[in-house]
């Protein structure tokens, strides 16, 4: 173990490095840690703030010029990062030498650790001795401090903490920072482009002309409110939340049905007595799917019905469709319009079950199984991760050492190397006590283990009378915690951008530190403001989606000029660049071409026996993360998609009797010689239909596409390829192509379908 002197030396060295960087950096005008004691600088403004000076109907994504520095942002930039984290956190943490003091700081594993540390520090700042803040007195060693003198009056660190104390003393704060300057060289999508992007992402279709037209009157919020009532959005929610909780693991065979205890739910396999094989197999499949998706359907039910998102935990019901209702034996307690419709879902209370939203669903509980020795700790750790944005396993700064633990003296209760995590998770593990290792509600005959902390949450214990409904107690506590909001915001952000939230950089000696920090603090502010909007909307998840859609992160399209390495690091989260998931690509193909990519009656993008997993899909069992960058195999899939879908869609569209999706301006007889104007008009249409681009004939992109069409068509005139269209491509009576136009259009459509703009979001 290091001596205090060694610790101090290390701290001082660290401070010198930080200070040197702070004073020398040119990455931003005021340096990374601009000392701002008065807090009045008009430097930050949240994107999309209510006070925006809007430049169009969607609001200026960079915000207005007004702003100030909120307390937590000031703390993050001026106090925590340059001073407190390097100088104090090594001892003042849950397993450090100062773990039993009033100042126990959280690391970045804790959900809202900046605000939590601010609160702890502020309490100490307000504690006075002879009119002086205890915080300063301790740090300067003027009163008893085990760590001795850490800072001295007149130095940089002292000035920072003094400024913090003054700020807390004055009670000043302001609503939001002004980050407009951060986006000064960024170009954004215009309104129509944004609507197309969001509608494709959320509902898997292109906007209608009426929707484009209504932007001016309803704004994008109004249009998206309608888009998010569609079934396709429901599918998007299910996919997005399954990416998080992965309960589709049970959506195969009878895996979900098998989770129900036959003694408790004797009708779980109600379909077994059906005489007709096909009907029985269908009922079995749909029942298992309904039970497997129970947790996801609670999310969906809450979101689609504009209920407060807090209901995902607080709901005193579950949701069933006619198939799962029979398994639970609750058909008599719920009314369906159609008892055979798997898409009809309803709230229901299963008799005897103290529901607590997704927490009490068998699939959620079985996704995180427990054992006699695990005692629900795994459930507690994932509960923290999903609902409190807290990674418990990151809370320990010091690694485990089995040779240092006294295994005979219950280390999870008494060894600080263990209690740093166990003090957090064990009470919540206890809150799960009434649900057994098979996920069934089974209150214990005996009391909870006495060699663990009692059931509860972060210092609050569950009372005896509340014990049978312990998860309801936990849900109520959790949903009023700011970290619950943070978790929802982060999920919505990843859902829309395909990107993970940034984490605070931790090495000030690397060259990119200043830029990384700047990016982090701006995003931190953004999430905080989105969270406020979430609360104002009464926890409506769709409000989160809309705020993110309107944000610079989603709307950024390019930078106005070349940007240097530091600026690239600052802007690395801006502008989505997600390879479409197989599910999203499937929906886009249908929406833009009117055709599904089916081969031999299988949708090859959705079927795991075909391309689904190779193109970055997940199976929720062994493949749990989506592919970020395309492999050569994925690239080949997109190439084959372009070829096959052009084959399936082009002749079909020419043969369509109703309104044509791809070729409204040309017929099969129109060639560059006979009707060049129509050809050109249709190329413009294809650019808009497939890529959302409005191109002029002088645009190089138009020229490239036109030349491709013309070259292939000319080649068809110069060679004898015959009249026949490939057999697989023949559709709607279009079998022959005497002018070689259909095949030239197939090449053109294939080219556009394979482009970056099509396969990426």
């Amino acid at each position: 173990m290091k001596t205090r002197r060694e610790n101090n030396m290390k701290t001082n060295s660290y401070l010198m490095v930080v200070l040197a960087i702070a004073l020398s950096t040119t990455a931003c005008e005021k340096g990374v840690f601009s000392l701002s004691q008065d807090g009045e600088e008009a430097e930050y403004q949240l994107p999309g703030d209510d006070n925006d000076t809007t430049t169009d109907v969607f609001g200026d994504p960079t915000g207005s010029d007004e702003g100030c520095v909120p307390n937590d942002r000031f703390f993050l930039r001026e106090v925590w990062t340059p001073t407190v984290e390097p100088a104090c956190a090594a001892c003042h943490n849950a397993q450090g030498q100062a773990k039993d003091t009033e100042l126990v700081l959280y690391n970045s594993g804790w959900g809202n650790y900046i605000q939590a540390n601010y609160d702890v520090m502020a309490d100490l700042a307000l504690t006075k001795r002879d009119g002086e803040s205890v915080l300063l007195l301790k740090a300067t060693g003027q009163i008893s401090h085990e760590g001795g003198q850490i800072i001295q009056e007149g130095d940089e660190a002292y000035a920072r903490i003094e400024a913090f104390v003054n700020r807390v003393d004055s009670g000043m704060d302001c609503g939001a920072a002004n980050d407009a300057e951060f986006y000064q060289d960024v170009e954004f999508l215009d309104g129509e482009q944004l609507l197309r992007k969001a509608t494709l992402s959320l509902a898997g279709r292109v906007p209608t002309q009426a929707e484009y037209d209504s932007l001016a009157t309803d704004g994008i919020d109004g249009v998206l409110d309608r888009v998010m009532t569609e079934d396709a959005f429901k599918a998007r929610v299910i996919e997005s939340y399954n990416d998080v909780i992965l309960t589709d693991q049970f959506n195969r065979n009878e895996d979900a049905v098998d989770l129900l205890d036959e003694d408790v739910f004797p009708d779980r396999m109600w379909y077994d007595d059906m005489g007709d094989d096909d009907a029985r197999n269908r009922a079995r499949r749909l029942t298992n799917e309904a039970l497997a998706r129970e947790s996801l359907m609670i999310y969906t039910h809450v979101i689609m019905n504009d209920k407060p998102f807090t209901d995902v935990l607080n709901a005193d019901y579950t949701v069933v469709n006619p198939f799962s209702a029979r398994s639970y034996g609750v058909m008599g307690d719920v009314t369906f319009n159609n008892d055979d419709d798997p898409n009809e879902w309803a709230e229901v209370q299963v008799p005897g079950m103290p529901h607590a939203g997704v927490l009490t669903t068998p699939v959620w509980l079985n996704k995180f199984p427990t054992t006699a020795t695990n005692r629900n700790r795994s459930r507690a750790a994932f509960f923290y991760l999903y609902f409190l944005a807290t990674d418990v396993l990151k809370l320990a700064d010091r690694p485990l050492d089995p040779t240092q633990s006294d295994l005979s003296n219950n280390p999870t209760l008494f060894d600080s190397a263990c209690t740093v995590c166990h003090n957090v998770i064990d009470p919540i593990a206890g809150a799960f006590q009434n649900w057994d290792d098979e996920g069934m509600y089974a209150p214990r005959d005996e009391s909870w283990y006495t060699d663990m902390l009692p059931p509860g949450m972060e210092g609050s214990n569950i009372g005896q009378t509340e014990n049978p409904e312990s998860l309801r107690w936990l849900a109520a506590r959790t949903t009023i915690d700011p970290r619950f909001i943070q978790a929802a915001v982060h999920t919505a952000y990843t859902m829309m951008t395909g990107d993970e939230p940034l984490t605070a950089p931790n090495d000030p000696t690397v060259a990119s530190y200043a830029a990384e920090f700047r990016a982090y603090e701006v995003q931190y502010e953004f999430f905080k403001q989105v969270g406020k909007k979430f609360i104002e909307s009464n926890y409506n998840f769709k409000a989160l989606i809309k705020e993110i859609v309107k944000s610079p992160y989603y709307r950024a399209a390019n930078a106005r000029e070349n940007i240097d390495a530091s600026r690239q690091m600052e802007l690395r989260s801006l502008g989505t660049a997600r390879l479409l998931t197989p599910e999203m690509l499937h929906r886009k193909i249908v929406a833009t071409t009117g055709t599904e990519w089916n081969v031999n009656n299988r949708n090859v993008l959705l079927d795991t026996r075909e391309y689904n997993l190779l193109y970055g899909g997940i199976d929720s069992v062994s493949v749990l993360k989506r592919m970020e960058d395309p492999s050569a195999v994925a690239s080949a899939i997109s190439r084959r998609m372009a070829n096959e879908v052009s084959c399936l869609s082009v002749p079909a569209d020419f043969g369509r009797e109703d309104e044509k999706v791809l070729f409204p301006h040309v017929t099969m007889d129109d060639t560059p010689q006979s009707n060049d104007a129509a050809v050109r008009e249709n190329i413009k249409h294809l650019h808009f239909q497939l890529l959302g681009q409005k191109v002029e004939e002088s645009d190089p992109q138009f020229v490239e596409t036109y030349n491709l069409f013309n070259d292939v068509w000319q080649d068809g005139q110069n060679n004898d390829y015959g009249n026949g269209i490939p057999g697989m491509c023949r559709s709607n009576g279009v079998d022959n192509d005497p002018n070689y136009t259909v095949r030239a259009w197939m090449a053109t459509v294939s080219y556009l379908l394979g482009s970056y703009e099509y396969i990426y979001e």
Partner: protein
Amino acid sequence: MRRRTFLKAAAAAGLTVVSPIATTREAKAQAGGLHRGPYFMFIQADGGWDPTSLCDPKGDAEGMNRYATDAIEMAGNIAYAPVANHAEFFQKHFNRLMVVNGIDMSTNGHEQGRRYTWSGRLNEGHPSLGAMVAAKLGPALPLAYITNGGYTVTNGLVAGTQADERSLNAFQKLAYTNRINPDNEGNTFHSEFAMDRIRQAADNRLSDKMEKTKLPRRRKAMDALHTARLGESELKEVLGFLPTDLNNNNGLVRQAQVALAAFKSGLGISVTMRTGGFDTHSDHDNRHIPRLSLILEALDFIFDEAERLDIADQVFVAVGSDFGRTPGYNNGNGKDHWSINSMMLMGHGVPGNTVIGASDPRHRPLTINPTTKALDENGIRLRPEHVHAAIRKLAGIERDPLALQFPLDMGEDINLLG
């Protein structure tokens, strides 16, 4: 895309920060060579395996195992647990096997342990060893890094490809994207002229887009797409080596078959494979030891198949897990999490019949002399970083800028494979 065009586009926007290995990728792609070894296979026993039931046997002396301590068997210098079919494996392969015992994982968390074992860093931030090796030795190859589970983080260095038995049918169609039926050369979607023209226009379009795009996230995505397209046309090379019979009940064997075919074709460099079921908090022996047998069966297959393909001397295999399991049994006859671990290294570059490191009878780590590698109470503890340093050296990347981006915090290097 023509490579010169790409380089021009890349230079125009300065990809140095966005994609630090762009030039490396280009250099390899321009060289156009297939990879001829060494090949790297990383097998993850998911859930935390029990070394005392495998290669760090203790027996029943202190209640550690159910088998007798004096029944522990030796294969050359390597002790192994006398259970299941272990003898068959160890007696056959001990000359190509190194066991590393007493590895201090410093964690009991699954995710952390998995990450530490395969990235060499307890905290987040490092890519998997498989990704790093593939990124250095041939990132533009279409199957450079096969990811069939386990820790597969790439940090954007190389694109991972899932390639197991489920991929076989797809490979035929993907090797010939313009053929309607992959077996029929003459039955195509587009004429040869049209297909070439499509590719040309697509390359021009991507190149043009890259020149105009300045946001780093988009530039990085376009770079990744460009790299993927470089390898796309080479997929057909693997077809001749893919097995037709993939019916083995052992999933690891099936994964290995495809990976070895990729290696033989020259298109693959590394693979991560995973098999689960090791988190046996109850009924440990009955549930855990059969899972260990599946791994040993797969290892046996790998070297037999590599011999058949004539690449055995180039195949390196590392087997590891999240962490070990507690000394002795809990009330449910299970074993819980324990932060002391072992790894098994085999094949290319591995001095066989060797055991490095050890643990005491209660499976606490013993220290070794970093120079002699003998047990030494004043020595150092073995950590995953030491294993990673050795494998990086074996791959010839230990001083490469790519590897230096991800330093190993291990103090003294013990030259494990030296």
